[in-house]
Structure formats: structure tokens, C-alpha cells
């Protein structure tokens, strides 16, 4: 530190050094201003508040019928909502109890609510009511009735959007305790 100051002092005594020092000081200060400008530019690029505010969708869970897949919209993306039948729940309890953790309980019913975009490359998988599964036409990926992946290439089940249970309603875009638990348990990943 002291050596640095001595060196700078010696440089100042010699005019060329002073020139260089002032030049560097000015250059550094200019760069500082440049950083400020870059920050403002980055903020201009940010999504607008009205876009971010539109990022909440409320679903009225009473509207859905058992076994019928309905596609809603959240943040421009398709959302699969499927009210599971009691028969499906029983089947899952016996054969794939882990899948039950993927379901959302609202009132007395269980729902599959997930983003309808294949976790492979983003196509919308098709629901097959007879087979009770999902098949993605792009590369042949398959998911079961709770949208858990059953056949490659998708790396994981369909993602579950952040949600908060509000009585009989589900608010997508907000993180309720049930969603936070799903994240902790590794049931789904943050979107």
C-alpha cells in the first residue's frame, strides 16, 4: 500500500506519470458512469410491471368435472387441470403411492394441476382419456394420469406451477405452504 503511494507520488513528479494518472482517473470515472448507464439499460429491458402483475390466475375448482381435462392459461402457458376420480385415487394408492404427492387437495377432491408443456422441449402433450395418460407427439414422451413421466425423453414429470389454496379457489402465481412443501420434497422444480 505504502509502496503504491510512493510510486504514484514519483510518477506525479514526472509529468508523463501525471498525464497517465489523470488519464486513468478520468478513464476510470468514465467507466463508472458507463456502469450506471448499463444499469439503466438493463432496467429498461426488464419485463414491465403490467406483465408481471398479469402473472396471477385464479381457478375456481368447483367448476371442474371428474376425469375431464380442462386447459387454462397462466403467464401465457397452458395449464392442465384434471379432477381425479376416486377410482384413480384408489388405483394410485395401491400401485403408485408416490404419485399421490403430486396431487393438490382442494376441499374434498384431488386435482392434477400442472404446466402443459413437455419438460423435454416444450411441446404440449396430448391427453389420452382411454389410456388415462399423456403422450407428447414431438418425441414420444409419456406421462401417467398425475403427469409423472413414464417414458423418455422428458427428464421429469410436468412442472407444477406455484399455487396457493384459497378456500375453493386456487391462485396460480403465488406460493402457498403446500407448494413450498412440494418444492422441498422434490415433487416439482421452480418455474
Amino acid at each position, binding site marked *: 500500500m505504502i509502496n503504491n503511494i510512493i510510486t504514484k507520488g514519483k510518477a506525479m513528479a514526472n*509529468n508523463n506519470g*501525471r*498525464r497517465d494518472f*489523470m*488519464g486513468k*482517473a*478520468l478513464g476510470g*470515472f*468514465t467507466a463508472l*458512469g458507463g456502469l*450506471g448507464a448499463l444499469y439503466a439499460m438493463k432496467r429498461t429491458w426488464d419485463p414491465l410491471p403490467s406483465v408481471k402483475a398479469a402473472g396471477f390466475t385464479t381457478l375456481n375448482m368447483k367448476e371442474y368435472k371428474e376425469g375431464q381435462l380442462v*386447459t*387454462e*392459461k397462466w403467464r401465457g402457458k397452458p395449464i392442465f387441470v384434471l379432477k381425479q376420480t376416486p377410482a384413480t385415487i384408489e388405483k394410485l394408492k395401491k400401485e403408485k403411492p408416490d404419485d399421490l404427492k403430486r396431487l393438490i387437495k382442494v376441499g374434498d377432491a384431488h386435482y392434477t394441476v400442472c404446466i402443459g408443456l413437455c419438460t423435454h422441449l416444450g411441446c404440449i402433450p396430448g391427453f389420452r382419456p382411454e389410456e388415462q395418460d399423456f403422450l407428447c407427439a414431438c418425441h414420444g414422451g409419456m406421462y401417467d394420469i398425475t403427469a409423472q413421466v413414464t417414458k423418455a425423453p422428458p427428464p421429469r414429470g410436468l412442472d407444477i406451477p406455484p399455487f396457493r389454496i384459497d378456500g375453493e379457489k386456487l391462485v396460480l402465481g403465488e406460493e402457498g405452504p403446500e407448494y413450498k412443501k412440494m418444492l422441498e420434497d422434490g415433487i416439482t422444480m421452480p418455474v
Partner: protein
Amino acid sequence: MKELKILGVVVVFTLILYWGVEPFAHSQMHKHVEGHDFKYPDLPALKVKGNAENGKALVAACVGCHSIKSQGMAAPMDAVTSAQTYGVNPPDLSNMGALLDEKFFAHFLLDPAKVTKSKHFAMPPSAGSEQDAADIVAYFKSIAPKEISPKEAYETACGRCHANRYDHWTQIGEVPKTKSNIKTGVDLDALAFKKKVGIYENKLADYMGKLPPDLSIIIRARSEQFLETFVEDPQSQLPGTAMPRVGLTKEGYEKVKAYLEKTGDPSKPKREELGPWVIGYFVLFAFLAFLWKKSIWKGHH
């Protein structure tokens, strides 16, 4: 120093140019109109004191057209039907006591068309005597809220004629949040609301002669002086205009102005906050540049 002399010449000519093109030219184009600080000197002072109890009884007559939401009295008709009947939707009276000048309010009740300086005014004289008028005003003052927000002031004083799209305000209320049909993208609720606004605006434009402008950005489209004198007395700035004199107090006007600044110039506080930093940066920059220049030029002179 020669260079300072040259700088002086450039600065003087620039300032002369600025003066001629801006303050001078504008003073010639817009004659100065003197305001009266919302004191309404053309109206004589009231000779009686109002009694709120008596006023309450008299106010029963008002509810035939007006709502008083704060007292649980709803309007007899919805906004659009009112407009189709009267030309405009009669305002809710809950906040009138907080916004209107007492003297103005009383004289207004005695002869609405004359006091508002309107060519035609849908509301008939609504008080039989100066005492009655003072009593009614006293009543409205008694139910007036202690604090009124800029937005409420705008909605009460201006909002039935002037929309403010930047704050999602239409003459019949805030634009509701609606959802479109996911299969077709058709948003029937939004369309229904737009239709209602359209019917209202058509009727209003017939009644007023033209549609009162949206005031979203009026704060940047007119000078401070113009807006203040215009709201105090529209005829003083635009003779023959259909806009009625509203009768705001000075405080009432300041509240409305605050709302107009919020919708029309929301970046003002940010500008005033960042300004000193950016200018300060360049002052320091110029200083450092001067030092660098001096060190580079050493020995050249």
C-alpha cells in the same frame, strides 16, 4: 481572455434566442389570466349560518337523482341510464362537503346554471332560500370525510365527465378485471363494459357539445397557471366552453392536481431524485477532464 469573450457571445445569443422563442412568444400567444385563488369574488358572502340538522331533512329531496354512498343511500338509476335521462350521471354527494367551497355550494343550490356559468345545466335550483341552502351545505360538511385522497377528489369533482385511461378510470367507474374465453379469446365482460362506456360517452357528448377530454396527461399538455385558472373559472380561459365551474376549494384543487400529476407525470419524483446525481457526476467529470487536459497541454503554450 479571448475564449471567455467568445463563450460570452455564444451564451448571450443563445439566451436571447431562448427568450424570444419561449417566454416572450408564449406570453404573446397566451394572454395572462389572473386567478382569484379559488375565492369566487363574484359570489357574495353568505348572510346566514347553516344548521346541519335542518339540512339533513332537506337533503331527502336530493336523493331523487343523487346517491350518498357514505350514508347508505344508493342512486335511483345506474350511471348509463342516468346519462340517457339527464345527459350526465349526477355525482355521488358523500365527499362534496370536503371539496366544495361553502359559499359556492350554497349559491350553486339556489341557481346551478348561473353559478356554474353553464349554458344549460341538468340540475334545477334545489334550495328555496339562502337559509335552506346554508343548511344543506352544513349537512354535507358534517358528513364529509376528514381526509380525502387525490383519486377520490378527482372521481368526485371531475370523474363523471373526464376519463383517465392511464389509471383505468372511465366516466362510469374503474375498468373491471375480466377474463377471456380460453377457447376463442373473446372477453364478453370487457366488451359489455366498453359498450356501456360508449353509450354514456355518446350521450355526454350530445349534452356537452363535445366529449370532455381524457385527462390522463393533461398535466403536461397545459401549464400550471392555465389549469389552475381554468378549473377555478373555465370561462376565463376558454370563453363559451361547456365545462361548468366546479366550485372547488384551493385544497380541493390541490388534491385533484396531485392526482393529475400521478397519472400524467409519474416520473417527476424519480427525475428530481436522479437529476442531482447525474449532473453532479458530470461536474466531477468536467473537473477531472480539466485536470487531464492541463496535464496533457503542459509545455504546449
